[in-house]
């Protein structure tokens, strides 16, 4: 497929600047990565409302909690691996438990961080955040959705987590498509199998669907950017129609989006299913695309999984 690409981080930065213009209650925090996360764009326009907390993520989450407890809507950013794992207890205790208005918007998630290697890649962040009560978790599929999710988070009452990538992502949604927290969307209609992706893997699902079509398989593609609350209605409708599902995510298959879908299906409507993702392993250094191939985050793997699910159905 011929893709056009755009940066999620850039759109995140742009959304923050727009928010800064329209609302006085928005405060942005970063932990010495503001150039990379693009919170620097906001810092430049609204220096009074931006606080760099230095390389001290645990304190940053506490500061975010204190600001939110004082009526601010707080966006806190750094790389996903540090934004979640390094300060999970601080998020749990000081943000999730008191249900404060902190929006943790992390970049450089997944394996496509590339050359920095496993220390900076993360396949665990969605798992860590979706297990926290009171949290809303979203994984936007492209730049436009990252922009819209940022805006939606600002209007949402309660703690939120958004994961973004480092690489430019293929544009898979339309700018004028509606966006609502907790809602996924069907990007391609189909009857034989459901391919459900989040993040960059939505584009791989669409690529897989094209190949499958040439093999006379009609695949439905769903963008499940709503991890928590999971868009259960959409999952239910999809499996009712197709009777089988493949999930795809740039995250460990242990406790990611696929696991959330599997939990729902196991309880309500068990159908054959396969999960494509990081197979409980750390990554390594390399180019983002190379790593995706090596670790099986590909359209080919989704196709194999789809064919296997259809055989089991």
């Amino acid at each position, binding site marked *: 497929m011929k893709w056009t690409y755009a940066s999620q981080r850039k759109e995140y930065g742009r959304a923050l600047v727009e928010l800064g213009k329209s609302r006085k209650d928005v*405060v942005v925090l970063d932990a010495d990565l503001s150039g990379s996360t693009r919170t620097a764009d906001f810092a430049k326009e609204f220096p*009074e*409302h931006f*606080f760099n*907390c*230095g390389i*001290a993520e*645990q*304190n*940053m*989450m*506490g*500061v*975010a*909690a*204190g*600001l*939110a*407890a*004082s*009526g*601010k809507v*707080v966006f806190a950013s750094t790389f996903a691996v540090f934004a979640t794992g390094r300060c999970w*207890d*601080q998020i*749990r*205790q*000081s943000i999730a*438990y*008191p*249900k404060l208005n902190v929006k943790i918007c992390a970049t450089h998630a997944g394996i496509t961080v590339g050359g920095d290697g496993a220390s900076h890649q993360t396949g665990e962040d969605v798992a860590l955040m979706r297990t926290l009560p009171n949290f809303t978790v979203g994984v936007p599929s492209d730049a436009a959705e990252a922009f819209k999710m940022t805006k939606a988070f600002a209007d949402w009452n309660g703690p939120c987590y958004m994961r973004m990538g480092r690489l430019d992502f293929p544009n898979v949604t339309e700018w004028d498509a509606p966006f609502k927290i907790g809602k996924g969307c069907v990007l391609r209609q189909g009857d034989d199998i459901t391919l459900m992706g989040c993040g960059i893997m939505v584009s791989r699902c669409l690529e897989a669907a094209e190949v499958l079509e040439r093999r006379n398989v009609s695949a439905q593609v769903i963008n499940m950017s709503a991890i928590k609350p999971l868009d259960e209605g959409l999952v239910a409708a999809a499996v009712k129609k197709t009777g089988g599902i493949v999930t795809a995510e740039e995250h460990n298959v242990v406790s990611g989006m696929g696991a959330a879908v599997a939990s729902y299906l196991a309880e309500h409507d068990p159908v054959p299913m396969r999960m494509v993702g990081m197979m409980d392993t750390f990554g390594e250094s390399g180019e983002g695309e190379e790593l995706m191939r090596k670790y099986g985050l590909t359209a080919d793997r989704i196709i194999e999984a789809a064919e296997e699910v259809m055989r089991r159905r």
Partner: protein
Amino acid sequence: MTAYPDDVIVELERRANLIRRHIIRMTRAAGSGHPGGSLSSTDILSALYFKVMHHRPTDPSWEDRDRFVLSKGHAAPAYYAALAESGYFPVEELLSLRKLGSRLQGHPSKSKLPGVEMSTGSLGQGLSVANGMALAAKLDRRAYRIYCLCGDGEMQSGQIWEAAMLGAHYELDNITAFLDRNKLQIDGPTEKIMSLEPLADKWKAFGWHVIEIDGHNMREILDACDKAKEVRNRPTMVLAHTVKGKGVSFMENALSFHGKSPNDEETKKALRELGEDI
């Protein structure tokens, strides 16, 4: 500097004594809890809630109130007693501490109890929250202050020093923090488990204004709070030397009462020592 008249001091000491009795009764009724570290914090809490802080118990979300964060969340019994005696909720409710369905959780929960500004209990986090509240006050150009009570054990956690850096960096002179230096943690004396000294020098080196006081001397507590308000461009750490279990002879400096409630006999003895007619 205000020279406080004797009757003010006597009244605050009376309130502190009342809180101490509540702590004993509450932890007895709960069958668990942390009397030791509650008793060492009591005089500071009494001074803050009944004299120093501007707050409206009948209007807990009054915008201009001073904020208080109990970083050492295990001192919840003392905190709850101060809140109840202030009028945030009925004093009778104190005995529901740690019971199923109670608003008085083992460690403070912001979403359950009015007057609690932040959920705490996992140590080392409160000062960061105080930083955030102080930044918000500055942003909104409001004059309220942030008070934070830290334990000495939690000085061992890295986040405290991250918070120390940020408070100094952003010149948060609207923070008055207290360090309840009772010198004991669960496993033993702090200096044996993980040395903290020289604490005053550490806080000074991190850019804080440090005031050392006897944390059981009401006049010194009040004076420290007044002095902190005069300091510009630096947060203040009041290093309060205290005694764990203060006020009950057999609990003073006794490790065993860090996280254990008194039995019936000990309860009677403690209350008698605290002047209760039983």
